[in-house]
Structure formats: structure tokens, C-alpha cells
């Protein structure tokens, strides 16, 4: 572990408190890497803002995606049984 891991842990906990449990934090060299999904573009901006505040001065690689909900694919209806 490095001091980056402590920061990553703090960031992950801060994200959880904000309800963003689907955003994951990893350490890659001297960068924090964010991955996972958020529901809206607004929340994506909030996540970046929160992480920037929590990990001030650390390099950040943002790979978070905004999850779009497509219409249900009715060709993928499944028969059970």
C-alpha cells in the first residue's frame, strides 16, 4: 500500500456517503482512477467535484460513464420453465 491507497479509501468512502456506490476508485501509479456508472450527467459532475475536493492535488483519471437506459428489448423476453 502507498499513501495513494489511503486517499483512494477516503474517496471511496466519500462516494458511498453520497450514494454513489457504483463508482470505483483504484490507484494506477500516481493517479487515482475512477470507473463505474452514474445515473445522470449532473451526478457525474458531482462525483468529479467531490473527488477533486477529497483528493486535492492528486492526478485523476475519470473513466466514469453515465448509464443510459435503453428501451427494453422485447426480442429478449425470456420464457421461464
Amino acid at each position, binding site marked *: 500500500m502507498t499513501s495513494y491507497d489511503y486517499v483512494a479509501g477516503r474517496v471511496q468512502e466519500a462516494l458511498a456517503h*453520497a*450514494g454513489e*456506490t*457504483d463508482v470505483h476508485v483504484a490507484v494506477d501509479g500516481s493517479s487515482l482512477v475512477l470507473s*463505474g*456508472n452514474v*445515473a*445522470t450527467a*449532473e*451526478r457525474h459532475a458531482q462525483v468529479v467535484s467531490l473527488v477533486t475536493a477529497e483528493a486535492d492535488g492528486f492526478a485523476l483519471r475519470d473513466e466514469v460513464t453515465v*448509464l443510459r*437506459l*435503453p*428501451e*427494453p*428489448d*422485447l426480442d*429478449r*423476453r*425470456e*420464457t*421461464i*420453465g
Partner: protein
Amino acid sequence: MIRVAAFGDVHVGVDSRGTLRPHLAHVQENADVLLLAGDLTRLGTVDEAEVLAEELADVGVPVAAVLGNHDYHSDCEKDVAYALESVGIRVLEGDATVLETASGGRVGVAGVKGFGTGFPGAMCSDFGEPQMKAFVRHSHEAATRLREALESLPEDLDARVALMHYAPVLDTLEGERPEIHPFLGSYHLAEAVDAVGGVDLALHGHAHGGSERGMTPGGVPVRNVAVPVIRAAYRVYCLGRDAVENCA
């Protein structure tokens, strides 16, 4: 045949107004009932629950739901449930309901949030500190309530569904990191489903990085309907008599 639409883990926030409802506009054409597998809000606040209720009101088919861990986060889970029930959604926690479809079908749904503890090979046990024992006992109690709810369903049903938030089997956690499996589900839930018999389908959410399909050791199909997994607004499953002929 009963067509069950299901989803979970939509994490509606106060910024989500109008994001879910358009996807449900045609659900009554595609399904007979709609089941919601928890984590319906982001932080479980009253404000979020009100937005959620607006999004889910008048979808045109009977709806039942369980809550998830996010819906408990603000200690307002009763308010979240009340908001959903105010728009006609039956919220289940250790109890059961019979949903009557427009065509006269009867779907029994037993629901519980469930909890973690894990699966044989990597699981928590009722041993040691009070906090650990409380964690494990909560999971045991949830499974017991699910079994009792399933047992309470009447005989004359067209389909029976066990609805949970936490996962009952490892199969649908495939893709999740093994380190977090004990926090994603518990084999006690599958044991409860298998103990009762006659369950057509078990649904859950919670495992965003998991996979859709699994099966209990007793042969009950399990489906993870977390929206990050199904990558759609909902999934439709056809159950009961004539499903094979009529689902396509």
C-alpha cells in the same frame, strides 16, 4: 401465461424527475405485472421517494416492490415505502401479496430485502463479536421471513415469484469481485426459496457488476435485474401455462 416485468437499482434522486417514467409508458402492453428489486432511490430520502412515486404512478399494471440498502440509508425507509404505497405499489418486507392481472391471472409475490453473509467457501458466521453476530442474524432473519412469506401464499396461483434485493446465489454475482461477495448476498435466501417449493422465479438486484442468470441448488431460476446488468429499463419474463408457446 404471466408476463413479469422487473428491474432494480434505478437509484432515483431528486434530479431524476422524468428519467424513468418515459421508459414505463408501454409496460402494460409488454407485461402483466411489474416487480421492483430495491435500491429504487439514491439516498433513501423523502424527497427522492416523492420523485420516485411520481415516476412510478399509474403505470397500468399491478406493481410490487422490495426496498434495497440505498432506500434505508437515511433511516426513512418507512417514508419511502409510504410514498410508493400512496401510488398503489405494494411494498413487501417479509410478507407476500397476490397481484391480479387484467386478464384474470394471479401472481403470488413474496418479498424481502435480504442481506449479506456470503456463500459457502467465503461467508460470515454467527460467531465472535456482537456486531458480527448481529450482521449474520439479520441475514438469517431475512431468509426466515422470506420462507414464511412464500409459505403464506395461497395454492391457486398462476405463478409464484420470490423478490429480493440481495442475491440468493453466486451465479448472478459472476463478474463481481469475490472479496465483496459476502456483502452482495446470502445462500440462506436460496435455501428459503428451495425449502418451500413451487417458486417459478427468484428476482434480485444489488449486484451491479454481476450477471443476469443463475439458478438455486433446487432448480429455481434466478435473475439479477439490476439495470446496470440488464442494460435496459426492465426485463420481461414469461411464466406459467402456455408460456413457451406465447412468450415470443
